Each structure stands twice: as structure tokens, then as C-alpha cells.
């Protein structure tokens, strides 16, 4: 092997090369299954990069970036849509007041993503695809990402028309479509009429939902898994999990049962 290598390398490198080779061989024994980045990784990246560049170029030659009429603050288009990647959040405006849809939910999503590595104490499935070894983590993520995140973007892009009403993609966007506003607050639907009763029932519903977390802890805290997880991690996970499921519950309540708010605190907030 030295013959051809020598032709290109200054001869005094010979000894260095042998040393390096021995060190590498020793390292390889400890860490087998390693291959050179050049050419193997660089080639893979180069091919992927070429395909992406060509694809982007062709797409850009064929599809023009949109440009509409000049900005006109006195002419509101209907519907006014946020950029597509935020349409999931805009969709939440249907079910929640803006402080939840626009501030609390995005904040929880970002914070929730960031804490994942610190609350997931399952050591399995590190570095390979598996569902069986981490069913809870994977199914939670799949639901949150594919259904809530991507799913609601698809809904917002293709199914929301004028007045933020639902339309089929092939349906005419009738700006005069009238949808009866028959939503009622949950306490009202449950028969409460007085101010105090309405308030208390709403508070009990929301409070009860979030009390599930502590209750499960009290009930299961002796389990070895819970012991390992610890109270802090458990609190974070259960709170975020209940927020995510609570969002779904609220959406179902609205779409199926016509519930407007669960808990109204006049002049302060509605949930």
C-alpha cells in the first residue's frame, strides 16, 4: 500500500503514517463499525444537496412567489390568514381567547419541547427507531405533532374560508355563508343560571381537570416507576399532558356540544 501513497506524500511522513495507523487500528478495536467521512458521508451529503438544489431551482423557475395588491390598511381581506406555519395557532383562536391561543399555547409548546430530554427518563430507544421500547413518548409526540400541529395547519390552509368558516377544498368560498351562533357556556348547558353558580361550576370543571395530575400522583406514587420519575418531573409531565389533552377536550366540546367557554371570569379571562 505504501507505493502509491508515497508518490503523493513527502517520504518523511512515513513513520507518522504508521503511528497514526496503529493508533487508528487500536481505536477501531474499541469502536468498530466506523467508516471514513470522506468519501462516504460527504458523498451522501453531496448527493442530497444536489437533489435539493436542483429541486428548489426547478420549483423556483416554475412557481412564482406571490405578490398581491399593495398594502392597504383600510381594506381587510376575508379571510385574513397568518402564514401557513402559524395556521394551527390561528385555528386555536376559534376555540380559545387570544391570550390562550396566541400566548399561552405557543409558550407551552416551546417550553414543553425544551423539557422533553429532562423529563423522559426512559434510557431505551437512544439512537434508533423503536415504538415498543418507548410507547408513551412516541405516541404522545406523534399525536401532538402530526394531529395537533400538522393536522390543524392542513385544516387552516385548505378548509378555512371567509368568516373563518369551514369549507371543502372544492366548495365555493361564499362570503355570505351564515353559520348560526348557538354556542353556550358549559355551566349554562349544565343548567346553572345564577352568577355565582356559573362561576363556581366553571372553576370546578377547570380545577377538576388539572387536579387529575395530583390525584394520580397520590394514587400511584408508590410505584417504582413513579419513584424513579420523582415529583418534579411528574408535575411537569402531567401538567403539560393535561394541557395538551385539555386543548383537545375543549375543541371537541366546541365542535360536538357547542360549548363556548367552560369557565368565565367576567372582565378577567374566559377559558
Amino acid at each position: 500500500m505504501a507505493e502509491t501513497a508515497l508518490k503523493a506524500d513527502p517520504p518523511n511522513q512515513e513513520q507518522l503514517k504508521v503511528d497514526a495507523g496503529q493508533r487508528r487500528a487500536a481505536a477501531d478495536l474499541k469502536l468498530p463499525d466506523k467508516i471514513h467521512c470522506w468519501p462516504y458521508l460527504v458523498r451522501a451529503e453531496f448527493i442530497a444537496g444536489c437533489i435539493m438544489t436542483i429541486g428548489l431551482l426547478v420549483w423556483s423557475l416554475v412557481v412564482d412567489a406571490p405578490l398581491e395588491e399593495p398594502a392597504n390598511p383600510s381594506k381587510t381581506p376575508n379571510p385574513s390568514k397568518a402564514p401557513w406555519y402559524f395556521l394551527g395557532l390561528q385555528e386555536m383562536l376559534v376555540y380559545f381567547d387570544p391570550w390562550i391561543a396566541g400566548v399561552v399555547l405557543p409558550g407551552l409548546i416551546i417550553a414543553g419541547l425544551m423539557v422533553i430530554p429532562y423529563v423522559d427518563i426512559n434510557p431505551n430507544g437512544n439512537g434508533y427507531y423503536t415504538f415498543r421500547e418507548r410507547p408513551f413518548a412516541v405516541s404522545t409526540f406523534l399525536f401532538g405533532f402530526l394531529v395537533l400541529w400538522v393536522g390543524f395547519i392542513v385544516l387552516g390552509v385548505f378548509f378555512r374560508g371567509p368568516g373563518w368558516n369551514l369549507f371543502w377544498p372544492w366548495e365555493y368560498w361564499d362570503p355570505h355563508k351564515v353559520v348560526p351562533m348557538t354556542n353556550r357556556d358549559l355551566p349554562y348547558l349544565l343548567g346553572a343560571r345564577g352568577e355565582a353558580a356559573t362561576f363556581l361550576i366553571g372553576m370546578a370543571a377547570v380545577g377538576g381537570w388539572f387536579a387529575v395530575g395530583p390525584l394520580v400522583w397520590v394514587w400511584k406514587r408508590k410505584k417504582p416507576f413513579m419513584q424513579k420519575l420523582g415529583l418534579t418531573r411528574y408535575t411537569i409531565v402531567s401538567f403539560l399532558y393535561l394541557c395538551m389533552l385539555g386543548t383537545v377536550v375543549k375543541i371537541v366540546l366546541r365542535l360536538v356540544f357547542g360549548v363556548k367557554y367552560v369557565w368565565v371570569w367576567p372582565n378577567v379571562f374566559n377559558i
Partner: protein
Amino acid sequence: MADPQRPQKQGLLEKLFTSDAWRSVFRHGYADTPRNRVLQVSANVWLHLHPSKVRRHGVRYRHTWCAGGLTFLLYLVTVVTGVILMFYYRPTQEYAYLDIKDLDFQVPFGMLMRNMHRWAAHGMVIFIWLHMFRVFMTGSYKPPREFNWVVGVNLLVLTLLLSFTGYLLPWDQLSIWAVTVGTNMARATPLLGHEGPFGPELGVTPRYDVRALLLGGTMVGPPALMRFYVLHCIFIPIAASVLMILHFWRIRKDGGISGPL
């Protein structure tokens, strides 16, 4: 591994690659030896982002989908095309829209640059999601890579903000209304927005709340355009670049691409 003993043609290329001039730029040898393969990466300022060797599965498309790398490529495309657009674009109410029209119809390759900038930005959002999805599915956020996942989430936020601030710059109907919808939510920030819970109680008014801070006023007007322009072209790209440097550094320091132990 290729056989280094295979006979070599002393063609023109061979002469070039072994010439003094060539060797002054690329110090390692040309022959395909293990040593040169290592030097090819470690003696090259761009390629030495890589280790000289990776674990075998790390180069497989089905492990990484190349999604992180392609996110980076798309980011670079937006940087290059974005700088070109900046030669022609002025972020003022009078000129912004007209400059975009000019790019579309007058400037040679202006439309192509604008299209590539826009579609690469959208592609970046899609590929960063794919990348995050892949990293979650391979459990690559687990120790020792927890912190790099956190860096990644920050990159995700910055990427979305980059896209969002850029959306305003054409100053057409699509822009200002999308940004109006987006920033209206800031009105309702608890404590800090004038329509948010406890905002008015704290003396927050439409003119002095977080939304006004972002827009430089109570509506999406010229000051908002200037703010978004500076955020889009200077502040966020610098922040994102710094985090990307950290991200790539940490991949190496955390032991390279994750894999079955």
C-alpha cells in the same frame, strides 16, 4: 475501502493534483489512502465540521433523512439570495412594494432570486420539522444530547420568526394582513398586552404594550416595516447563525450522530 494499489494513470489531472501549486492549497496527498481520507476532512476548514470517521449507520439516509443538513443548506440558500435581494429592496412605505415589483419584472434574475428565497424559506420550515421529527423518533435527545435538543428548539423558534418577519417585507395585502393577524395575538399577552388578563389593571395601553413595542406603533405601518426588516436581515440571522455554530459543535462534542449503543 478502495484499493490504493490500483494502477494510476499519469494523466493531466494527475499532474494537476500533484503539482506544487495544487499542493500549496491542498496539503494532503491525492492518492486514495486512509491517511489522505482523514486529511481530506480534517485539513479542510469547511469539511472539518465532520469527524474524520463516523459510525456506519450515520451516513444512511434512512437514519437521519439528511434533514438537519438540508435545513442548513436551505438556510444558506436564503442567506445568499437574501443578500442579493437586499441590493434592490428599501424597507419604506414608498419603495418597498415597488422594489419588489422591480425585482419581479426589471431586475435580471430578480424573480428567480425572489422565488428561491421564498421557497427555500418555506422549505426550511418543512425540513426543520422533519429534522425535529427524526431526532425525536430516534430518541436522539436522550443523554448526552439533551442540551443540543434545547438548542434545536431555539433554532426552530428563530426559523419561524425569520419566516414571519420576512413575510411583511413585500408590503402587499398578503403581508400586512398576515402580520396583523399574527401580531394581534400579542395584544392579549397576560400582563403585557392591553387586552390581556391583568394588562389594563397594570396600566398597559394600546400605545404602550408588547405589541406596540414590536410594531413601533398601534398598527402595522412604516415603523413596523423597518423593525421587521432589521430583525429579518440582521438580528435573527445572527442569532440563528450563532446557535447553529453551537448546534454543530455540540453534535461533535456529544459523540457524533446518535446510534444504538
